[in-house]
């Protein structure tokens, strides 16, 4: 889904204004159009599928409840991005706490992302390996990488939503690729001992 984020007149702005007035239909339309990238942001922060749907639902609930707090309708995307990111960070902290608690219980097997039912459902071994590699990326790099690959967003679109310079987005995407290439070298049969020549 390509969106003209930096156009002078944001085509989504009338919808956002209508949502601010309490228009439910406009809100449903907003959800339909933008659920995808919000899932991407939440996944980018969480790094796993567990709890993703619940967090996304919480984000939309927060958008509906707090839309009146949005002062500039033209800046709604960074605002929604921050809501999504904070909700995902909270959920991530809760999940970490839960894992620690479970790990502390005697006789309880330790939980890890690689053994979750969702990971099992992903399918092939290679998918799991790739997802694990993405999950191991620092959040800093994972977020723009997921947005780029899930939504096909341009650097400028990612920069606007994440409220950072375009150059920073580019740097993070280069580093994310570099890290993934290293961690997937064996799995994807990359390198063959010559990769460092270019790097």
């Amino acid at each position: 889904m390509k969106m003209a984020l930096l156009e002078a007149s944001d085509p989504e702005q009338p919808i956002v204004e209508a949502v601010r007035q309490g228009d439910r239909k406009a809100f449903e339309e907003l959800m339909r159009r933008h659920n995808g990238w919000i899932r991407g942001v939440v996944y980018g922060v969480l790094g796993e599928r567990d709890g993703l749907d619940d967090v996304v639902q919480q984000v939309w609930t927060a958008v509906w409840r707090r839309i009146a707090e949005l002062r500039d309708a033209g800046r709604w995307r960074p605002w929604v991005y921050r809501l999504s990111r904070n909700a995902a960070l909270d959920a991530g902290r809760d999940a970490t706490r839960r894992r620690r608690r479970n790990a502390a219980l005697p006789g309880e097997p330790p939980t890890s992302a690689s053994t979750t039912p969702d990971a099992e459902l992903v399918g092939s071994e290679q998918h799991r390996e790739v997802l694990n590699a993405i999950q191991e990326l620092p959040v800093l790099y994972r977020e723009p990488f997921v947005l780029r690959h899930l939504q096909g967003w341009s650097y400028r679109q990612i920069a606007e939503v994440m409220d950072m310079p375009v150059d920073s987005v580019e740097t993070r995407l280069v580093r994310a690729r570099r890290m993934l290439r290293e961690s997937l070298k064996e799995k994807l049969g990359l390198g063959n001992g010559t990769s460092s020549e270019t790097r």
Partner: protein
Amino acid sequence: MGQVQKHVERLIVRRLDDELSAEEEVELDRELMRSPQARRLLDEYRRVDAAAAQALGGVLADRGPRFDETDARTGRVWQRNKGRVRAWWLIPGAIAAAWLALSVPSPFSWRDRRAPSIVELQSRRPDERGSELRTVGTPELMRNVGNGLFPESIKRSTGRNVLGVIGNDGNVYLIEVERVRTLRKPNTPAAAARDMNGVM
């Protein structure tokens, strides 16, 4: 990593992301012609990208947005569905819930009691956030009938529910239900006496 290699790597990543200018395209093509390492790096990053896109696409397939305004009002999360919402039972369920809301009087109270529905959206404007069911008209009417000695009381409440279901196609279907509930108490001496004693 030398500056030249870093620069080439950036160009490669920018090409994969469709971010190169025309001049940069020419520059990268020239580098790819010249350097087998650059060609290998482009190929490897392309494979990393393809694998990542495939894995992410599978795990993050958009199942359609979910929203429950009840959450917005009370902060509770009623829905905890981990899988795909199945419309085949949601639609008859929503119709049954609407029918029950219309036909079954509450035995306990005058107040509207709303059964938890699958997805319930309440009509409101921003200044009414958090409001409960609206009461339309006078909630309680007292009028004299017959010889005027014993009043007959009529209570009426009106509410509107909007039930929402999400279909397999990802669309949200809304069913609006207007409910009017009227209870008339007989104008018998016993009823009047109960009223005077404050017994409903």
